[in-house]
């Protein structure tokens, strides 16, 4: 059996932002009983022993955890490559220095747009200025500290891809990730208000291609198209239970961050070792390999390339997680995706519908 290379540690679902495309679960209030520092340290040792080399620290907002630098330090002591994925709102110079000293390898700062009005509207809170300030501060602290700017693209901001690239260049980012929204969690609720038109996509791809040519040496540009518009589905997680695992704030272990939606038996680091969960648990074995596949996947030449696509998307769109991902043009359910794409292209006015912001219900602020 293959061993995981990467672990996504969702340290907390607390977040100062309210992005309507957030991939976190809708029932955020069910995740309050977070793992302690010691529990995370134990999980990281188990992860390293299982073969994990890269630790992605995310959330929610990982800076909401006061022990973030301590967790980073422990990860580095284990030899893990540490990658922080943050909104940067709470990234003060003091905390940045603390993280730098702890050995944080790479900082990824999210930004919602290239200018304050739109960025703050999408984030649901004034945040743009502080994010840009934080990005500058990272590079001022250490020019060689690798910085990636993350932008989730959708109908409301995709027309500004050119300006986003300019901003990343101006901030001295080493990389920019322009990733179209994936429709899970809150994004699924807001899908029709977020899905861009084909014209918008064509335009942004052209701009990205030209920028790649222009900035070849200077900045790496990652561009992810929405799978609704692609011919084949995305090879989700490089195969179910094959390369990656996710640990949720309360210790749940998942083959992918959205897999809690599938109603499979739960596995928790509070009850079992990470090795047992990876090797033996029903949730990790359910869609491993190619045995579970129906046609057209089973007989498809690409079954070891895209692994039948995304199980969570298949479940979301068809009610059956073991069907071919409807994003694939060969799927018998592809019409469902085509219908959503048609609707997105019928009315090209952005912002026709209101975006539902991510909020934590059932908990006092």
């Amino acid at each position: 059996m293959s061993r995981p290379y990467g672990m996504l540690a969702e340290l907390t679902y607390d977040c100062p932002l309210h992005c309507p495309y957030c991939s976190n679960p809708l029932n955020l209030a069910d995740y309050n009983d977070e793992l302690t520092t010691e529990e995370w340290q134990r999980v990281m040792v188990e992860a390293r022993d299982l073969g994990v080399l890269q630790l992605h620290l995310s959330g929610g907002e990982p800076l909401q955890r006061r022990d973030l630098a301590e967790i980073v330090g422990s990860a580095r002591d284990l030899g893990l490559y540490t990658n922080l994925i943050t909104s940067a709102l709470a990234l003060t110079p003091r905390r940045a220095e603390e993280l730098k000293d702890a050995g944080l390898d790479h900082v990824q700062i999210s930004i919602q747009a290239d200018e304050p009005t739109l960025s703050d509207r999408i984030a649901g809170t004034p945040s743009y200025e502080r994010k840009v300030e934080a990005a500058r501060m990272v590079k001022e602290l250490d020019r060689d500290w690798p910085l990636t700017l993350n932008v989730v693209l959708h109908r409301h901001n995709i027309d500004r891809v050119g300006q986003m690239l300019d901003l990343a260049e101006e901030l001295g980012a080493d990389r920019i990730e322009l990733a179209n929204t994936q429709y899970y969690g809150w994004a699924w609720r807001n899908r029709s208000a977020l899905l861009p038109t084909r014209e918008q996509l064509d335009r942004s791809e052209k701009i990205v291609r030209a920028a790649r040519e222009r900035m070849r040496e200077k900045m790496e540009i990652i561009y992810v198209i929405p799978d609704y518009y692609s011919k084949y589905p995305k090879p989700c997680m490089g195969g179910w239970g094959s390369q990656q695992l996710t640990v949720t704030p309360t210790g749940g272990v998942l083959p992918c961050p959205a897999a809690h939606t599938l109603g499979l038996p739960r596995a928790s680091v509070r009850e079992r070792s990470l090795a047992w969960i990876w090797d033996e648990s029903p949730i990790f074995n359910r869609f491993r390999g190619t045995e579970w596949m129906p046609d057209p996947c089973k007989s498809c030449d690409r079954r070891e390339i895209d692994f039948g696509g995304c199980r969570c998307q298949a479940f979301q769109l068809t009610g059956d997680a073991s069907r071919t991902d409807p994003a694939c043009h060969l799927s018998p359910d592809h019409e469902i995706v085509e219908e959503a794409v048609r609707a997105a292209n019928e009315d090209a006015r952005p912002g026709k519908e209101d975006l539902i912001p991510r909020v934590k219900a059932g908990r006092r602020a």
Partner: protein
Amino acid sequence: MIMAIPSTNRPRLARQARLNWDPVREQHVLLAPEGVTVLNQTGATILGLCDGERTFAEVVEELRGKYDRVADEEVRDFLARLAAKRLVELGDE
């Protein structure tokens, strides 16, 4: 496109990459933000020499002290491939 690396160039690991030993799979790896590149012993030795101080010619020279047969072109291709993936930075000449 693979670029030709001049002998006087001083290559070094990209700032976002870290050379590491994978104790579970017992192999050398190059870690970067979004990926793990598996290296063989020779690859790890080459990268260990790429410190931004040694020139390409000096790297090859030191390899000749360690291995019987070292082909210039193979080392050049190896580094150029990693440079194209932004794992190696070609430095000053």
